[in-house]
């Protein structure tokens, strides 16, 4: 035993620190880009800072009215929502991947996303109007649908007080498939206008949401992320396999339930806000693990930043790519995700050969 052996992990800790710092810097630069540039007008940092300072009561000199509207009412809430939704999706993905010991798991596998979609489309087809805490009926029913499906999947996968992970995965796929079928059935019966708005929501969009939306979703996302990070050690142990986690002191059933509910809450909040944005939960933890290693202390904190970053840029793209109309952000992330995975598969193949 020598000193080098005792001290060598320092290197990887430093590298992980650099990765987190780099992500943080990238997030700030991206916030600046997303707020200053846009279809309507380009603003300087000073103008943006002026608007923020005025709104926070730090400056008494009012900026121009249309500047204020574009920056404060349109761009900043959209940036904030992208960061929140991206972080929530990425962290939910990281949780489910550790829980299922499967790097391909995300919020689709436990039925969260299909359940949310069904809830949202039910609201649209019933045409009923309700609002609660700044959220409209589609958002509310999507939330209920997501949590309801997860609860159903969990109950169906339960055998004698225990939940086997493989049974959970299969039940999730089956229930998700059913939810998708019902969603399609309801969509076919909608009139042209409702169909169009439902499709826009389903494919994911961050448009047309104000601060009240951001504030309504922030608590769920914050609590979900905090709980996830508090369980970083258990997540590391679980990703070695359930039995090993048990032998190393993790109370399995309680921990699995807490993590599943947390993942469902995070995914539900994001789907409710912005529809189904695919692949973020899948790629982001994957990339963070590649950069900073598989330790969940870093995977989770890194996913918060990288998830927000990815969605912010996907949203910037979706605003710019088609001039006449906005492309749903879910389409952008799915294209990025699909290409990313094809690249990954190509590399895997060459290594196998």
């Amino acid at each position, binding site marked *: 035993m020598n000193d080098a052996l005792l001290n060598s992990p320092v290197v990887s800790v430093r590298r992980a620190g650099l990765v987190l710092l780099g992500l943080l810097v990238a997030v700030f630069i991206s916030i600046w880009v997303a707020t200053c540039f846009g279809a309507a007008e380009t603003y300087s940092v000073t103008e943006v800072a002026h608007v923020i300072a005025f709104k926070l009561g730090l400056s008494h000199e009012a900026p121009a009215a249309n500047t204020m509207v574009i920056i404060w009412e349109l761009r900043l809430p959209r940036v904030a929502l992208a960061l929140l939704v991206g972080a929530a999706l990425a962290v939910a993905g990281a949780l489910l991947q550790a829980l299922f010991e499967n790097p391909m798991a995300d919020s689709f596998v436990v039925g969260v996303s299909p359940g949310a979609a069904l809830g949202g489309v039910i609201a649209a087809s019933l045409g009923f109007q309700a609002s609660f805490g700044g959220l409209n009926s589609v958002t509310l029913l999507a939330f209920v649908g997501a949590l309801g499906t997860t609860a159903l999947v969990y109950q169906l996968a339960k055998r004698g007080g225990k939940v086997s992970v493989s049974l959970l995965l299969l039940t999730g796929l089956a229930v998700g498939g059913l939810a998708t079928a019902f969603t399609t059935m309801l969509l076919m019966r909608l009139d042209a206008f409702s169909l169009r708005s439902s499709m826009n929501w389903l494919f994911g969009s961050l448009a047309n949401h104000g601060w009240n939306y951001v504030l309504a979703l922030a608590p769920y996302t914050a609590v979900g992320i905090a709980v996830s990070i508090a369980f970083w050690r258990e997540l*590391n142990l679980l990703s070695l396999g359930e039995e090993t986690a048990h032998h190393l*002191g993790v109370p399995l059933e309680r921990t699995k339930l807490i993590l599943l509910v947390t993942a469902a809450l995070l995914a539900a909040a994001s789907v409710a806000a912005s529809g189904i944005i695919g692949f973020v939960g899948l790629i982001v933890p994957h990339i963070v693990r590649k950069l900073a290693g598989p330790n969940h202390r870093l995977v989770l904190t890194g996913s918060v930043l990288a998830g927000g970053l990815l969605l912010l840029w996907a949203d910037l793209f979706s605003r710019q790519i088609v001039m006449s109309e906005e492309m749903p952000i879910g389409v952008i992330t799915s294209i990025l995700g699909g290409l990313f995975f094809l690249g990954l598969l190509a590399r895997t193949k060459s290594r196998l050969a």
Partner: protein
Amino acid sequence: MSAAYQIDRISAGYGSRNVLQDVSLDLRRGELVGVIGPNGCGKSTLLRVMTGLLAPSGGEVLLEGNPLASYTRRLVARQVAVVPQSQSPIFAFTVREVVEMGRAPWQRGWNTPSSEDKRLVAGALEQCDLLGLEDRPVNELSGGELQRVAVARAIAQGTSILLLDEPTSHLDLGHQLAIFNLLHKLAADCNVAVLCVSHDLHLAPEYCDRLILMGRGKVVAVGTPKEILTQKNLRAIYGVDVEIHLNPHTGHPYVLLTRPEEKEKA
């Protein structure tokens, strides 16, 4: 002093299928006990009951004199370390990170490993011949290397009881010998209670203080290797004819297999 483990007439199974019937045994500090028996005789199920993964349908499991179920998972993990049968890790943790996770029952919060943790981890890496592999990702290791990582993690856990399920099944000759030597040393020098499921009828009788012979979900015989390894016992349990010889250097018994057709010729 009470036994580390005391198992009293347990039955256990999966659904309606009963695998263990009326199994009793005890495990004391400072002894290395081998569990032998044919495939499907309930060896692994016995370990699942002892580690709390499977609740027995009858009987009692006492850990240091108290019912196993009366402890929290964390408290059990501070007393009992387990080396499960071979696993295939998905995520690219390094060998050191995985061995360090053996310290999890002793750690809390955001903390990084203490100097005590680092000392135990370094010791375990050295004892399992993993020096030089510390920074390799575990999902790129061979089956034998993984098995040594699992043993190292259990040793780093620093418990007074160690349970192992076929820890040498993927190991080469040199490492098989090294692991049994290590288990013997833990029992004899560090007063650890070691129970090891094994199919190795050379090394288990050579190193174990006692052998437990299982067959069809029951304990058939318990005793010293000489008492257990008899032609009669092995024919009854494994259905094969064998010769028992004594190691000329240590006097411990070992099993010599004979081919059935040679028997017929003779």
